[in-house]
């Protein structure tokens, strides 16, 4: 303790370091806060000059995001029944129905969770095998699994596009789940192998001596021990599938389109409806921000495929 005090950073240095880091953090946050704020602005406020930091909050962006509207004709004025109809009618528009956003968001949820479940399930099994057994050509297989990540997605997309077209998987949930599972598997295997390597073998051996079969030992001893590792791997896979854009934009167009290719196509009546875009982005980004905070202890490991552990 005393020696650390001698060589450790002085009080003043700490203060300056803290100040600079906080300054950087605040600047880096501005675009994100701007997305959230813009979602609560009215259209005129969002494009005001100078940009408005203080404004009267409105849910117009969110209402526009979830509905399709058309200009009100003089004859068809009905009494607004709900708060969101009142907002829309106030601009001289009427709601004609729900927009596509809800559907696209649900696609993201289905494909994200489906592929995460599959890649963590398959990943746990093979990571256990790679960790505990002498698999022939183990190192080559592990490297092969990693190298699948080096290919530019567009390069692989050409034959996958052709393959999906002939198998009838284009623009289907099943096709996208399989594809994202394959992409995420490399991450899942590498991360989970690291986590399982850290569980002492003695636990399983004790279970084997107690009369468990290998499989029972895996289920009842290894899985509970690896639970944290499995959970954080799952969150990483989910975030990847959630954010993926290149495959989604090339292989889906209607039924299975996820939110990332959809959000940039949101257009309002007469120019881009930035509050609606920002509202969509907010709904889409905030879950990931929460996950990032939950994950912060395992973040480094996840982003480096387990190459750097703290």
């Amino acid at each position, binding site marked *: 303790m005393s*020696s650390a005090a001698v*060589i450790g*950073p002085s009080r003043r240095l*700490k203060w300056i*370091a*803290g100040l*600079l*880091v906080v300054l*950087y953090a605040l600047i*880096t*946050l501005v*675009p*994100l806060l*701007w*997305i959230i704020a813009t979602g609560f602005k009215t259209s005129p406020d*969002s494009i005001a*000059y100078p*940009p408005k930091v203080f404004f009267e909050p409105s849910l117009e962006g969110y209402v526009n995001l979830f509905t399709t509207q058309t200009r009100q004709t003089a004859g068809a004025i009905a009494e607004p029944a709900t708060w969101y109809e009142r907002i829309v009618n106030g601009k001289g528009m009427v709601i004609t129905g729900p927009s596509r956003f809800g559907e696209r968001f649900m696609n993201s949820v289905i494909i994200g969770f489906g592929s995460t479940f599959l890649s963590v399930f*398959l990943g746990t099994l*093979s990571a*256990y*095998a790679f960790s505990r*057994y002498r*698999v022939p050509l183990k190192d080559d*297989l592990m490297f092969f699994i990693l190298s699948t990540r080096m*290919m*530019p*997605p567009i*390069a*692989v997309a*050409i*034959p996958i*596009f*052709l393959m999906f077209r002939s198998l009838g998987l284009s623009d289907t949930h099943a096709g996208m789940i*399989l594809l994202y*599972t*394959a992409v995420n598997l490399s991450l899942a295997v590498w991360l989970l192998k690291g986590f399982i390597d850290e569980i002492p073998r003695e636990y399983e*051996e004790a279970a084997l001596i107690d*009369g468990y*079969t*290998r*499989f029972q030992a895996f289920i009842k001893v290894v899985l509970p021990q690896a639970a944290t590792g499995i959970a954080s791997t799952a969150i990483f896979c989910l975030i990847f599938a*959630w*954010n993926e*854009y*290149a495959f989604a*934009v*090339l292989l889906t167009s209607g039924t299975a389109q996820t939110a990332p290719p959809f959000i*940039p196509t949101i257009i309002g009546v007469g120019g*881009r409806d930035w509050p609606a*875009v*920002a509202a969509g982005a907010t709904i889409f*980004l905030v879950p990931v*921000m929460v*996950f*990032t905070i939950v994950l*912060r202890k395992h973040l480094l490991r996840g*982003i480096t495929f387990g*190459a*750097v552990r703290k």
Partner: protein
Amino acid sequence: MSETAMDRAARTTPPRMARKIRGLSDRAIAWIFVAPTIFLLLAINIFPLIWTIRLSFTDFRANRPNAEVSWVGLRNYERILNDPEIWQTMQATAHFLFWTLSFQVLIGFALAWLINAKFRGNNFWTTVIVLPMMLSPAVVGNFWTFLYQPQIGLFNYVVAFFSGTDPTSFSMIAEVALAPWAIVIVDTWMWTPFVMLICLAGLRSIPESIYEAAECDRASKWRQFWTITVPMVLPFLMLAVLFRGIENFKMFDLVVQLTGGGPGSTTELTSINLKREAFEKWRTGYASAYAVILFVTVFGLASIYVKAMNKVKER
């Protein structure tokens, strides 16, 4: 050591019981566990790769699946390597790679070094800084086009405010001279935390005792920084550069949303160019050859780099 404990247990149990205890043989379990993963990766990664290589020798067009396909040998490769447009996209990619890596290494290392001073609340602020990195590049990139708007954009307003110019006088994404920097700025904003986190792990791996010894030898802080901190963090930094290099060589989503490769083709990185050839012009055979060339380039550069990295680690 652990093997012997198991062997002993196996030897002392009667054969019938042993079969029951073991259930499936280890080998069978290993194969059952690994097979689905390998199968899926073969089906969705390796099979397509082989297919791409095959297509690259043909003049196949995916929008005309029934047209006759003929073998053209190495003609696609020849045409790509002689195409000035492709060299231009390579140049744009090199510019993007060089500047994003430089900025991210400099700022990322500096931030890590500052955070390592362990001021109060450093963990909280680290988490805040990391946020942009985890978000969807397409969605965030799309929103940045709003920030870059000449009249109403926050970015232009702030720059104009501090430099005294007119915010409508420049457009980051519509001007040939500025667009390459527009994508560098957003990528740096997004991915600097990645380099920072890895550097921070490197800094934290240096044992205090080395600094204590240096202090006893009366080495100056400056000298300690260059002879202890930098060489010890270097392997970590090189790993960060490897990851970022591969990712930015593949860059598609962020830039396609920001500039779409424009204006003209000033920010047309290789992936965007490839997408245009494959899915807009539908020159599938030609694009496949292009994809093979890109893959060989990444793989070649990455393996040379990994060799260099291992040399640094051994020192």
